[in-house]
């Protein structure tokens, strides 16, 4: 074995093509409802969310803090803290099995093995008193019957795959000895060690420096191509979405408000909230030179409503520049406004296409 041979993860991934075929539906979420029963009242954190994830696809879930995207992800792995949260309805079907019906023991075998997750805070998400190698080896030994030595070897290979330099040394180090970017890579190594079918990345770059962000995203995209893993990318950063996703779901106050392919969404948003998000991105190319003033940053006025007191009708109506009486009184249906492009809005036609150019 020469140093130039990239380590393979498993026989199936070695045969996988560089771009997984759009094809079979891998994960089918139907009407997922996750509610929190708190002292302040009922919080419908995820209220009837459905989507499908195909093999090898990258799906982005976008929205502001508190819109329910992280809860959706945790629901997929059934890691919702109970109390106060419960999955009260819906189904999550992975390869024909409804994950909600599984026993805890069966669900454990899914976690880390069929579906993996990486979290936002690499600083605190790694056990400070275990070496990096042990933490990666652990997930391998949890799901495959290999010896400790083999698992550690695999850990080293994984570190190499996630492009951590000098992996044979890093394997023996503790998390506090690694930088933030390297810790996130280590998390990715843990998540992908058992070649899962789905990787959920919950704000993987938010806590990292901008330069490191690009590297990590790049890594995720590359690994995904090599391994054929489907990725659910959760973020509030539309820039990240543009670079990595194929399809996008926009969530607001616990529900989907728009869904489309990434190009279509950016080019032709059909929901005022999406439009607002797109307009909030500062764009240097709109500055026409030193003499002319740059256009003002546009923001969406107001704040996300408290999930314990959602308004009747469209949840976005109070902040929406296009809202009418109907929007305040009736919740708009979620319809396919054009092929592959869905939105829940009474005024989709009025949402002008693309970004504002000045």
């Amino acid at each position: 074995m020469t140093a130039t041979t990239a380590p393979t993860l498993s026989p199936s991934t070695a045969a996988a093509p560089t771009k997984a075929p759009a094809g079979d539906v891998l994960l089918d979420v139907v009407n997922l409802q996750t509610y929190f029963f708190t002292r302040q009242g009922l919080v419908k954190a995820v209220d009837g969310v459905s989507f499908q994830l195909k093999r090898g696809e990258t799906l982005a879930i976008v929205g502001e803090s508190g819109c329910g995207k992280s809860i959706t992800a945790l629901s997929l792995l059934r890691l919702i803290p109970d109390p106060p949260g419960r999955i009260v309805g819906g189904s999550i079907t992975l390869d024909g099995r409804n994950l909600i019906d599984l026993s805890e023991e069966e669900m454990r075998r899914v976690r880390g093995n069929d579906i993996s997750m990486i979290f936002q805070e690499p600083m605190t998400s790694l056990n400070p008193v275990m070496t990096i190698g042990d933490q990666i080896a652990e997930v391998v030994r949890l799901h495959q019957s290999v010896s400790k030595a083999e698992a550690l070897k695999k850990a080293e290979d994984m570190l190499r795959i996630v492009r951590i330099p000098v992996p044979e040394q890093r394997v023996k180090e503790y998390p506090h000895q690694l930088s933030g970017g390297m810790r996130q890579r280590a998390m990715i190594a843990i998540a992908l060690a058992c070649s899962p079918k789905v990787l959920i990345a919950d704000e993987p770059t938010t806590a990292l420096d901008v330069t490191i962000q690009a590297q990590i995203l790049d890594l995720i995209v590359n690994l995904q191509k090599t391994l054929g893993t489907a990725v659910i990318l959760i973020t509030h950063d539309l820039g990240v979405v543009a670079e990595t996703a194929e399809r996008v779901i926009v969530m607001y106050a616990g529900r989907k408000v728009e869904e489309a392919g990434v190009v279509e969404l950016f080019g032709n948003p059909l929901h005022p909230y999406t439009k607002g998000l797109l307009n909030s991105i500062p764009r240097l190319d709109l500055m026409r030179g030193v003499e002319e003033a740059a256009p003002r940053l546009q923001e969406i006025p107001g704040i996300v409503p408290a999930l314990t007191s959602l308004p009747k009708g469209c949840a976005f109506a109070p902040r929406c520049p296009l809202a009418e009486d109907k929007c305040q009184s009736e919740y708009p249906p979620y319809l396919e406004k054009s092929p592959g492009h869905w939105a829940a809005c009474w005024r989709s036609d009025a949402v002008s296409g693309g970004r504002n150019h000045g």
Partner: protein
Amino acid sequence: MAVIDHNAELNKAGANVTGTWSSFKYFCRRYPLGAAGGVICILFVLIALFAPLLTGYDPTSTNARSSLAKPGGAHLLGADFMGRDMWARIIYGARISLIVGIGSTVLGCLLGVIVGLTSGYFGGWYDLIVQRLSDIMQSLPLLVMALVMAASLGPSMTNTIIAIAIPTIPSVARVIRSNTLQLREMPYVEAARAVGMTEIQIAFRHVLPNTMAPLIVLGTAKLGSAILTEASLSFLGLGIPEPHPSWGRMLSESAAEYVRTAPWLVIFPGIAISLAVFGSNLLGDAVRDMLDPRQRT
């Protein structure tokens, strides 16, 4: 999947709680142990307050004929070797324990807050010196420190209160200080400064009210140990002097000699101490769970 009753779950979580009565009921349901502790504490306070109504005997009057009388009959809980009625001594002893316990806790917490607030707020040399002094005082266990203070001051009720209060100051100051340091960095304090409030105004309007919660937690936690320390000091003969009836001293007077012949002398004062401390500890735990869930024990 099983059907979930939303309302039942919400009620369990304590939603739908409005008004003082339902808040009180919620507290009792969520913290049953704490509620029980509160009841016990209130009971002791009532006993202490209404002592003369609960017994006709004078706790300090001796009566050689009743010496070592068994419980029952004329003496509800028996009498000690000097013929003093045990029931009366226990009831009036509640007064002593509460006065000393509450007094020393309040004194210690008050001084501790002042020290901790100023130390955390103003920092600098003052803070450094206070911290080193706290380290030094905390390098002795509470009982030893109280013993030394009691020895230094001489036996009296006031001195016992002081002897117990002073050693509690460092631990109170430490908690209040770290709380103050946190609060000082809060955005609303910055904002207050930005609109021109003086430091003193900020200290009183913003920092002090937010210090209440940890203070209450500390106070209720320390009350139990204050009562226990007084009992220990009196047991060792260095706390409350004659003629005041102190539960701890009652136990030392009876000690090993009467263990076989007059067990009621040993059992009842001990139950009184344990119950009082138990009640305040239960209450203290629940108060802490409610106000500062991060510190749950």
